[in-house]
């Protein structure tokens, strides 16, 4: 009856900011990013990418409550850069990675399709039973 709508999980309501940056008042070069309507999918990816950066001293995220659909990401960096800047770099890096992953997948798809065709036409060795292991 009073169950929240399921679409609250991923629809950003009017007037709500997707991203809010709050600089830390006590720790130098630290900030908290609040990202609305996102979950572990994005948060964990960002955290791991940030930790690859030697200029990042700390990166961690949490989803404060299961009924709130946002995560907070805390980042502390070395003095020669800023949390927002390293987050930007992490995003660029990830976008590049996913882009190349997609390209590789498309290339592989062309290869796999021609392989399947060969097998169907009786040419070539049937690799499907060798590599395809059904449990």
């Amino acid at each position, binding site marked *: 009856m009073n169950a929240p709508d399921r679409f609250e999980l991923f629809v950003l309501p009017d007037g709500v*900011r*997707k991203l809010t940056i709050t600089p830390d008042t006590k720790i130098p070069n630290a900030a908290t990013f609040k990202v609305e309507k996102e979950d572990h999918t994005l948060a964990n990816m960002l955290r*791991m990418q940030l930790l690859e950066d030697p200029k990042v001293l700390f990166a961690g995220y949490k989803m404060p409550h299961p009924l709130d659909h946002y995560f907070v990401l805390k980042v502390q960096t070395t003095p020669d850069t800023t949390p927002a800047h390293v*987050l930007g770099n992490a995003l660029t890096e990830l976008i590049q990675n996913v882009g190349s992953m*997609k390209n590789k997948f498309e290339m592989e798809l062309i290869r796999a399709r021609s392989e399947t065709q060969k097998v169907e036409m009786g040419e070539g060795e049937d690799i499907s039973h060798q590599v395809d292991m059904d449990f």
Partner: protein
Amino acid sequence: MDMYNGGPEISIRSLRKDGMKFVLSNTDLSVANALRRIMIAEVPTMAIDMVEIEKNSTVLTDEFIAHRLGMIPLTSFDVDRIQYTRDCTCTLYCPNCSVELTLHVKVNVDFDDMNDPTIDKTRQVSSLDLISSDENVKPVSDDKSHPILIVKMRPGQEVKLKCIAKKGVAKEHAKWSPVYGVAFEYDPYNKLRHSHYWIEEDENLEWFVSDNAVEETPIDPNEPFDYNAKPDRFYMEVETSGCMKPEDVVLRAMTIMQDKLGGLQIKLDDEFKEDTQRWGY
């Protein structure tokens, strides 16, 4: 800076109509897991979301039938052309954001057969009885001899209803998930010791290594444990409901991943512009 030089690698191990297997390597666990999560919960498909029942004299209640209808996978090859209802300009639903399917089955009483117990008088209403208004969005039916059963009827009963199929994602309801399962494994020999197996006496006798182990080298007992090692080969298998090709599910998931990251990057840039003076960033 990045330990995964050259970017992620993919090798497809098998490709079938309703499923595929591939190995994703040279990337982080978090990326592989994000891909898995998006395939399960964020790739949009079509599914029946509203049912208007005109007549129902079957043994199943209206809501029971409505629920069963929702679970039927619908072909969603060109789901991109359909809008989400919440983004549509219409008030309830319209052809831009929905597809109509109708079901009307009436089982007539045949008085000659009535008293003959050898004749099966049960009428099986299945997904084949659903008539779609859109050729591209209809119940998945690769095997016409095994359609999806909706309700069983006896002579004299009638069911007449209209279904509205809408575009959605599985985050809202699992019926919109394009996949029946996504298998995900890394490190089949448990070299990283991420798994702790419960054992009686001997781990090697009581736990099987998975079939993916043929792609890796077994543990060398003389080699010390490498506590810095990270997983970087992920064995994935995608099994679809038949609503779209497995390779399309993966590609769409990757596109969604790009959009997610890209969207955040744009928001970050906006924040930069707004807050330059305030924070001095």
